[in-house]
């Protein structure tokens, strides 16, 4: 009998174009997502070498990082942003790559539109020049971020040479406590794993808490896999996955749908498959988490206080914490709930889907954003925006004093007009609290959408479990 394999190993093996001793495996790429920031140099490289895009029909482009979310009138105020978006238009036209442009309601953050259109499916290998490509692992796919040289390789060959990854199991058992979301699950995991704990691995998320998550929750979870250092994370497909996909624009119908479902149901880790590393977390340990530092593992539950670096035994952790507190303008021992905020950002490829907006709206409904806070909600795609408006979520947010924006990466990364001013403090549903991530000198605290909405109303962090 064949050696038991993990789900990730099976998908990997199914995509082997070429395996030669002493060389990385050559993997076939089923889907290549492209945005304006990491593609121009790659397409210029193709032009210079006279190469073509091998499979434009397996490639999908959209502008997201640079796109203003309030006024999309062109030319944009920033000529460099305009140049990048214009270059994407020219490149996709020249190389015949499908593009969801800013006037298309399907435009949005690459990691929102792939699943929404049904081009992200179980068992696939998916890449994009963006580290949060791990998001697509929610469907039981191997999905990972690549650099621009690798983007060029995929465009030219539809393949990528890769060394096999090590296998890690992260099992979250029991039940998700009330008031907690998938964001709190992943912040808890990264808190335990550390920001480098997953380097070299693909993570399979397992256990009852993971199984009970919706597809949107699984996307939030897999999205932040890279923040623990692992390049990809995935959840085996199940009925939740199948129900989400059925009827989406690019999903098969008829006999092809039946064939697809039959294949997807086989996508499981074999009993006895070996993992190189394992992490087990009990669901009862999960709480609404808030990051206090400048990496996503520097976090505590909302009921706790900013930790004291002097109590940390590891010298590197102590030094990192000291630097982080200085940057963040925080004192050890301050209760998290006493930290006042200036800005709130609900959006990003982590938390900008309809379910995220519903959760935030349920907290904001009938309340008012604190006078000292400027808060914005940025849907992940034009279609998320449309659906939210059909459900009346836009009215709830705007009546509460939130700004209601157009789709894009927005304040996640400081490449478009949505940025923090130096020393401004933000409760953010995004994925990175690195120094300067949301703008030079800006101070980021990562939280779930309901925690962000609750903080907007209170003007400081609050325990959303006590608000509801």
């Amino acid at each position: 009998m064949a050696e038991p394999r993990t789900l990730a190993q099976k998908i990997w093996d199914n995509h082997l174009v070429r395996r030669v001793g002493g060389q990385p495996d050559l993997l076939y790429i089923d889907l290549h997502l492209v945005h304006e920031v990491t593609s121009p140099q790659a397409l210029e490289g193709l032009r210079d070498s006279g190469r073509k895009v091998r499979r434009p029909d397996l490639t999908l482009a959209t502008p997201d990082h640079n796109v203003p979310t309030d006024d999309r009138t062109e030319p944009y105020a920033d000529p460099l942003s305009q140049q990048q978006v214009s270059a994407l238009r020219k490149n996709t036209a020249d190389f015949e790559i499908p593009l969801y442009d800013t006037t298309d309601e399907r435009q949005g953050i690459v990691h929102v539109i792939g699943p929404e259109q049904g081009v992200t499916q179980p068992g696939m290998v998916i890449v994009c020049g963006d580290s949060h490509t791990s998001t697509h692992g929610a469907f039981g796919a191997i999905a990972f971020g690549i650099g621009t040289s690798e983007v060029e390789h995929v465009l030219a060959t539809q393949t990528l040479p890769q060394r096999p990854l090590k296998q890690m199991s992260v099992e979250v058992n029991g039940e998700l406590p009330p008031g907690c979301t998938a964001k709190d699950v992943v912040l808890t995991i990264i808190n335990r794993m550390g920001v480098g704990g997953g380097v070299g691995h693909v993570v399979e998320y397992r256990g009852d808490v993971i199984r009970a998550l919706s597809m949107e929750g699984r996307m939030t979870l897999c999205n932040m896999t890279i923040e623990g250092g692992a390049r990809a994370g995935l959840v085996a497909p199940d009925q939740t996955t199948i129900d989400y996909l059925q009827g989406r624009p690019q999903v098969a119908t008829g006999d092809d749908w039946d064939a697809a479902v039959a294949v997807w149901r086989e996508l499981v880790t074999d009993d006895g498959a070996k993992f190189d590393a394992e992490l087990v977390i009990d669901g009862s340990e999960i709480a609404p988490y808030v990051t206090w530092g400048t990496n996503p593992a520097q976090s505590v539950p909302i009921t706790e206080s900013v930790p004291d670096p002097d109590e940390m035994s590891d010298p590197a952790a102590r030094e990192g914490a000291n630097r982080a507190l200085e940057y963040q303008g925080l004192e050890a021992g301050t209760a998290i709930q006493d930290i006042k905020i200036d800005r709130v950002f609900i959006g990003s490829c982590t938390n900008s889907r309809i379910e995220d907006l519903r959760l935030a709206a349920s907290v904001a409904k009938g309340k008012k954003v604190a006078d000292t806070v400027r808060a914005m909600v940025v849907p992940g795609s034009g279609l998320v925006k449309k659906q939210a408006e059909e459900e009346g979520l836009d009215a709830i947010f705007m009546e509460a004093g939130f700004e209601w924006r157009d789709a894009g990466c927005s304040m996640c990364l400081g490449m478009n007009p949505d940025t923090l001013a130096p020393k401004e403090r933000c409760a953010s549903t995004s994925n990175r609290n690195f120094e300067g991530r949301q703008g030079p000198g800006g101070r980021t605290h990562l939280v779930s959408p309901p925690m962000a909405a609750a903080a907007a109303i209170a003007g400081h962090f609050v325990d959303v479990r006590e608000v509801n």
Partner: protein
Amino acid sequence: MDPIKTVTGNAIPLDRANVDTDAIIPAKYLKRIERTGYGPFAFEAWRDDPTFILNNDAYSGAPILLAGDNFGCGSSREHAVWALQGMGVGAVISNNFADIFRNNSAKMGLLTVILAREDVEHLMARAEELPGAQITVDLETQTVSTPDGWSRRFEIEPFVKDNLLKGRDDISLTLANEGDIDTFETTRPTFLPETKA
């Protein structure tokens, strides 16, 4: 990519763990559509601090960077590699690198050398004491050495080593076996999605 055999010179001791690619090159500089010109903006935010190591002229133009654990974590931006190369760095030595950064470096001909933490710390202490102290990274022999006779061997995947030594473009290598791709494509299930609008 130009072939690389050795990188020799003094080294910048950047003794911080988890240096992310946003710190190496902030997002606002990712709007260029070229691969060059990022060097002046490398580590920009940290340069406001007069005590930051790169503000010490003694390390200006040093071709080796000594880094802490998990160097290059975060974003997939290859611009981080371009920025380091733009400031003249040809090799980074750490006990651990983030995966995507390491891949990007290999494609661009930036050496990422893994040594034991204590060996990196030894080199850092030396570079702090003597900013001009020389280090040689020899790819062919897979060694890091100093003129006083200290030497350590490092591991590197033979395929990557060969590409770096020859300055080889791996797209050409893949296309040399394009028939394998054609064959694979005939086996793909028909239910898989396409992106056609």
